[in-house]
């Protein structure tokens, strides 16, 4: 959908430096929140014992997801190539409908807003939204 401008990339990298120490907690909050607010997403986690916010599987997986996002920040200049393996994973093994990437992205943005109320300005918001959309697109590459 979109190309990240140099300014977008700069904004993302700068903001990510603030996010990084709290990344695991942010991921856990976003994932747990998504399962509550968009219950259809629970269908991907039927094998978990406990899907409630703050549960062990949610915390662990939230950290995993944010690890992937951190990886993407490092590969921001070529997300398609950089996220190839992750795309194959999501396409062939996990088979997550790509519409859900948007839903998770929204929940990550909500948590960024609650965690960094002063730093998550509209300018940072648009850069992060574009970035997460670009990540979603790269993850969708191998689907068909």
């Amino acid at each position, binding site marked *: 959908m979109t190309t990240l401008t140099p300014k977008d990339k700069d904004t993302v990298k700068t903001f990510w430096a603030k996010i990084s120490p709290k990344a695991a907690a942010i991921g856990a909050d976003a994932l747990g929140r998504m399962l*509550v607010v968009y219950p259809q997403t629970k269908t991907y986690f039927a094998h978990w014992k406990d899907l409630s916010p703050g549960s062990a599987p949610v915390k662990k997986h939230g950290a995993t997801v944010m690890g992937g996002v951190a990886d993407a920040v490092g590969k921001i200049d070529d997300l398609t190539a950089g996220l190839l393996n992750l795309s194959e994973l999501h396409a062939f093994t996990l088979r997550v409908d790509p519409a859900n990437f948007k839903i998770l992205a*929204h929940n990550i943005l*909500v948590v960024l807003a609650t965690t960094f109320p002063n730093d*998550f300005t509209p300018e940072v918001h*648009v850069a992060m939204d574009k970035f997460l959309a670009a990540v979603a697109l790269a993850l969708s590459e191998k689907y068909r």
Partner: protein
Amino acid sequence: MVKWTDFERATIQDIFSKIDYDVVGPAALSRCLIVYPWTQRYFGGFGNLYNAAAITSNPKVAAHGKVVLAGLEKAVKNMDDIKTTYKELSVLHSEKLQVDPDNFNLLADCLTIVLAGQMGAAFTPEVHAAFQKFLAVVVASLRKQYH
């Protein structure tokens, strides 16, 4: 008819009793115009929307943000029949303003993020879910009269 749990009902009333409409409305609308710039197509008469700073300080944007929140208040006061309450607003958006209804979700998302920023930790998953449900009903009601 939409069924609200006691928690959902109380949460929505609580949120709207505590927010400053004059802050949240302008913040949500300006954020929407900045994050989703194509939404500016509906505001040709608003003057300078060239960059984020211009949008945030634009008095017409601020005024209109308050109008939007006032519209939401109608839904808060008539939670048991938002569809009927919004019939004329839906016709207005469809026939006169000709707003693509997908834009309602964009503004709804920005409103959620502004509220999250204000409430911080108090914006728990459960509160978030109640607010999301409320906005979904509002959006569906606004879409109802589009033909």
